[in-house]
């Protein structure tokens, strides 16, 4: 059984040189820390969608400043009071100006003789003010509170943690005792006390958050700084005569960045909840100013008859909270893949 293998001369030709080298090469380009985290975040669908929802909410809420001025927000229009949502061209009950009154859908717009061109996308409240405008404004308030909480987390929290961890010894001891005392008072009590001393409103909520929000961040940063302090690159920087603030800024902060980002994402929903909570029980932001908490409180009074007045702000608030929570989880997994399960 002899079989001749036919070999043509060109079977023995050498491969092009470049290709040969490529075989040994691992193809993916090396990624920086941030790129890597971003790639992992994109794979997490929930977190990625949440990110876009938050971006959208920020753009809408702050972009609305040009269209919704404070005067029109506060002005009441009693003829338009308590109108349900109406979006032209949407024939779904609940979005066509009809409201369920004792079991039957009644066109409230017709009943109240509203001019045919006039409509409110999410209906109106008991003073005839557009609910959509008020919700957008309320979202802006929530986001501002979130921003402020983030700001204090990033400044006081991070600085306090780094100083406490870096100095060590007695300074650390005293600073930790202070944190212990602050955090063993329920933050609610701090908030209430601030609200009592200052006038209820945005300023006092912000002041209260400034006092109570940063302790967790400071604790985590301190613990991490204690570890980073003994790293060789920090020792190298020290022995080269780098000043402490410069080491903190150039070496510690970049290495702490993932903790900072993750912790911030947990501070934000807490702050948003706090604002809504305080306004809801009537000791935070109060009428004529508005926020999601105020809207919920107003809506809750008429919930039995005009459920949409509470549902819409409630949905917006919940979506905001879910988005921040999901993004927080996503960022934690992205920056620290070890914790991912």
């Amino acid at each position, binding site marked *: 059984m002899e079989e001749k293998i036919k070999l043509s001369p060109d079977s023995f030709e050498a491969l092009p040189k470049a290709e040969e080298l490529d075989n040994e090469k691992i193809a993916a380009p090396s990624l920086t820390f941030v790129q890597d985290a971003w790639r992992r975040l994109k794979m997490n669908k929930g977190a990625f969608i949440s990110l876009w929802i938050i971006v959208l909410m920020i753009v809408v809420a702050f972009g609305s400043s040009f269209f919704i001025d404070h005067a029109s927000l506060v002005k009441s229009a009693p003829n338009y009071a308590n109108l349900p949502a109406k979006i032209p061209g949407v024939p779904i009950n609940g979005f066509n100006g009809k409201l369920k009154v004792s079991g039957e859908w009644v066109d409230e717009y017709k009943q109240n003789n509203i001019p045919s061109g006039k409509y409110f996308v999410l209906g109106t409240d008991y003073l005839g003010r557009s609910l959509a405008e008020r919700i957008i404004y309320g979202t802006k308030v929530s986001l501002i509170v979130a921003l402020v909480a983030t700001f204090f987390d990033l400044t006081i929290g991070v600085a306090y943690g780094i100083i406490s961890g870096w100095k060590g010894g007695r300074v650390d001891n005293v600073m930790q005792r202070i944190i212990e005392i602050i955090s*063993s008072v329920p933050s*609610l009590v701090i908030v209430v006390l601030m609200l*009592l001393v200052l006038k209820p409103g945005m300023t006092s909520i912000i002041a209260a958050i400034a006092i109570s929000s940063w302790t967790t961040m400071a604790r985590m940063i301190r613990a991490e700084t204690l570890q980073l302090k003994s790293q060789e690159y920090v020792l190298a920087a020290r022995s080269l005569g780098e000043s402490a603030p410069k080491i903190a800024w150039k070496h510690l902060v970049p290495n702490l960045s993932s903790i900072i980002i993750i912790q911030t994402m947990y501070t934000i929903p807490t702050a948003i909840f706090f604002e809504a909570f305080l306004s809801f029980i009537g000791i935070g932001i109060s009428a004529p100013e508005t926020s999601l908490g105020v809207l*919920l409180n107003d809506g809750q009074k008429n919930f039995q008859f005009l459920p949409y007045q509470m549902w819409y702000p409630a949905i917006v608030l*919940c979506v905001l909270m879910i988005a921040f929570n999901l993004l927080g989880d996503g960022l934690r997994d992205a920056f620290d893949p070890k914790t991912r399960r």
Partner: protein
Amino acid sequence: MRKYLLKRVFYMLLTLFLVATITFFLMKLMPGTPYSNQEKMTPQQIKIMNEQYGLNKPVWLQYLIYLGGMLHGDLGTSFQYSNQPVSYLISSRIGASAQLGLQAMIFGVLVGIIIGSFAAINRNTWIDTLCTVLSIIGKSVPNFVLAVLLQFYIALKLGWFPIADWGGFSYTVLPTIALGVGPLAETARFIRTGMVDVLSSDYIELARAKGLTKFGIVYHHALRNSLIPLVTLIGPYTVALMTGSMVIENIFSIPGIGEQFVKSITTNDYPTIMGVTMLFSAGLVVVILLTDIVYGIIDPRIRLSGNGD
């Protein structure tokens, strides 16, 4: 251990002293007067009232009297309810709040443990996803929104439970659920993470190799080990329950401390505000101390690092 304990108790007392001091002086800074109709009162009347409530004495003396009174449980007299001592106001209302808080804690932790371990056992299946989604929603939906929804749809529409007020056990069901959902979601997440860790460890493998039933493995080995760190969450839960009680008790009109607190804030009733503030702080400090001690007892590995701090 004893030295550590003494140190902790000292810091606890120091904290409470500072809270009392700060609260007292903040109250003195507060705008507004405790008399709702001061414009109509003659200077004579104001003077008599001030004398009656001890407001005519210098501030430092008022402070000393306040501190001294607090040492034997006297928190002053309420401005709002004529001549009712704050300690009586609090003690007559603490029962409802404590019952509600305890029930919510037990409900939240127990159901959270069940859901969390269920998710961990069925990891990466639809059950797991469902549990994760539920716990994210439970964490994100504010408890006061949930309370209003429960009150309307379950109590008013379906009529399963009383709408509001405080009576037998059936009155406590809806507020307990509303209050307990936060701890529930947190516990479920926590237990799931811990359990997934434990389930992949060698001794679980051994237990499986020994031929233990699935329930036996989960109940005797996995669950017990992932329960220990849960103790550290009791402190934050207490805070959440105290905060929550303010609004939940209001919605369901339960005569508890939280409802009283909100009422006294809106009516400038300083002594009551101070009393409840002290009660909340003391409660939290004691809970934190107790959980730290319990943690040290059930997990001896912790004690050493606690001592070194």
